[in-house]
């Protein structure tokens, strides 16, 4: 079927700016992804899945200008001993990175997976993304698979002593970065992956994660504090029996961020938690789009998303739990809440459950509200200033999401950052 003219034009214009890297063994996957993009077209304003988020600047031919953000605070996770992998405007920087070697894990650049004949990575590249196109289309992810210019393949075979830290630096005001990572966590292996940094003026990032039976992946991401950056990210996670996936994202500022999480529980007794805390001020648009599919017995999934919005900021949550036929004893939970600090801000939520099994427990809730005046007065009556009391209540509101971070030291860093950011405002 032919695409609507506007979508066709936008897609053609965007594709004209891109060159498929000379990608060897991933060529087939990339060409298939390009065919998907051509068939679907890039997201447009009229697409149902983009009803609350204008995709224009994410699909435009060139990346919109984004000023570099100068910041006197140390980069996130700086105090942690970790294996650093640095990308500057979407290009791997060996000088800034640690040696890509650690016990229990092997890490390679995407461009090396062919010459090194890394089977699992060749077989995973583009596969989870392609699966994730059904039942909802995600053209920006397909675009990523087709044109990603860099990325890493992380193979976790043991329990590495340190987290793997992907650091994305922004150096050019018009950079347009497309990164694609593939991750395979073997049976019984466990790893923590950190991500932080603004990455580029416009960032399209895709991560495909395959967790084998009994494998565990912790993912903690910080996006902030740049005001002008734009990002569309996708994480596709396929989970085996008794595997665990826990992902938490902290977002502060950014003119447009769309984070999609597509999780498929394919083995029994698996546990998936995806959570996010975001603080937006002014010209800020943040979209969490989550799709969790239960396709096995006795799995647990949790979605916990909290947004604090002020000065006209917009928050979006589209979250779905799909329980397939036969996925009995599913325990699904989804909560999305916003704290609106003024009347100019808005929160748009679309929580969905679709259940085809009869022995499941699924709950979902979505709220938006203002600061609790009674609690505010209580704190003030004890001598706490309005501002400090508001900050305390704001942090308390975000706490349920931050509690999803299991590592206490990491959780503490996140809380400290939130406190700092709240104290400074913009």
């Amino acid at each position, binding site marked *: 079927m032919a695409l609507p003219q506007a979508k066709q034009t936008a897609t053609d214009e965007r594709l004209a700016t891109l060159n498929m890297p000379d990608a060897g063994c991933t060529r087939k996957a990339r060409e298939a992804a390009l065919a998907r993009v051509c068939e679907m077209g890039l997201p447009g304003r009229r697409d149902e899945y983009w009803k609350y988020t204008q995709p224009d600047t994410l699909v435009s031919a060139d990346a919109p200008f984004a000023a570099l953000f100068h910041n006197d605070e140390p980069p996130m996770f700086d105090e942690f001993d970790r294996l650093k992998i640095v990308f500057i405007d979407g290009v791997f920087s060996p000088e800034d990175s640690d040696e890509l070697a650690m016990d229990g894990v092997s890490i390679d650049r995407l461009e090396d997976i062919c010459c090194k004949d890394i089977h699992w990575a060749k077989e995973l590249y583009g596969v989870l993304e392609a699966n994730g196109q059904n039942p909802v289309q995600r053209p920006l992810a397909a675009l990523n698979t087709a044109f990603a210019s860099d990325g890493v393949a992380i193979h976790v075979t043991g329990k590495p002593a340190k987290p793997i830290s992907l650091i994305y630096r922004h150096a050019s005001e018009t950079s347009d970065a497309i990164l694609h990572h593939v991750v395979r966590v073997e049976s019984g292996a466990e790893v923590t992956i950190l991500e932080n940094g603004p990455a580029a003026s416009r960032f399209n990032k895709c991560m495909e994660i395959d967790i084998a039976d009994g494998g565990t992946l912790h993912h903690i991401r910080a996006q902030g504090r740049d005001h002008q950056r734009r990002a569309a990210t996708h994480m596709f996670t396929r989970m085996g029996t008794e595997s665990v996936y826990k992902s938490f994202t902290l977002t502060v500022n950014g003119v447009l961020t769309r984070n999609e999480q597509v999780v498929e529980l394919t083995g029994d007794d698996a546990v998936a938690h995806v959570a996010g805390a975001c603080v937006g001020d002014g010209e800020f648009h943040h979209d969490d789009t989550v799709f969790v599919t239960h396709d096995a017995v006795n799995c647990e999934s949790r979605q916990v998303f909290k947004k604090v919005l002020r000065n006209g900021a917009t928050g979006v949550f589209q979250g779905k739990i799909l329980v397939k036929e036969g996925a009995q004893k599913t325990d699904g939970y989804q909560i999305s809440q916003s704290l609106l600090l003024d009347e100019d801000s808005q929160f748009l939520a679309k929580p969905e459950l679709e259940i085809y099994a009869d022995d499941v427990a699924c709950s979902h809730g979505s709220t938006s509200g203002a600061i609790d*005046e*009674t*609690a505010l*007065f*209580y*704190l*003030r*009556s*004890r*001598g*706490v*200033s*309005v501002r*400090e*009391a508001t900050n*305390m*209540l704001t*942090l*308390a*509101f*975000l*706490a*349920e999401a931050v509690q999803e971070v299991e590592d206490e030291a990491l959780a503490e860093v996140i809380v400290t950052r939130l406190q700092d950011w709240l104290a400074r405002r913009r």
Partner: protein
Amino acid sequence: MLDIKNLHVKLEEEDKQILKGVDLTVEAGKVHAIMGPNGSGKSTLSYVLSGRDGYEVTDGTATLNGEDLLEMEPEERAAAGVFLAFQYPVEIPGVGNMTFLRTAVNAQRKARGQDELSAADFLKEVRAKAKALKIDADMLKRPVNVGFSGGEKKRNEILQMAMLEPKMCILDETDSGLDVDAMKLVSEGVNALRDEGRGFLVITHYQRLLDHIKPDVVHIMADGRIVKSGGPELALEVEHNGYADILAEVN
């Protein structure tokens, strides 16, 4: 110390006059009790003194040691020495009790130009005071008032009072929801704070709290005014005869 003159207050939303000319002076070192039937304006008086939104002062004044309370924000009143023990202490999920206490203590110290308490000094002090009120370590760690029983909430109010060392303590029906043992514990906490420099305004429905916290003066409030004042014997009179006789006598 606390001087209230001809205080008239109405509810902003309902345009309803609640206080219709309250005159009251609480001297330092004294305990004044206010009793009165439901709807007489007792709780309104406590909220207006502590600065809660939703009330409009249409006439009169309220000062603490000469400072105009009505012009101040709630946190400024707290720093000036006003403390309200709430009838219904507020639950605040996500804020640890200890964090809350430390923030409050240090905010007030800062407002008064004092140095913040060190973490160690604070901990030492809070532990000693909590112990006297039979508040265990777990209660200090939990979120403010969340999952606390009625008695625990009221003991927590008294702990805050003990930590903040206010000049003017207002207790709004602190006895409600307390069993006999809890009432005794709370009263002991209050009595421990009685000293020459501190005034108390104890709002209650029942005389029995006043068996434990002995008042110097008892006021009867009805329809937005203090209609009768006397010694502790006035509370006993109410206990035996109810308010009807007193109100009939006044009218």
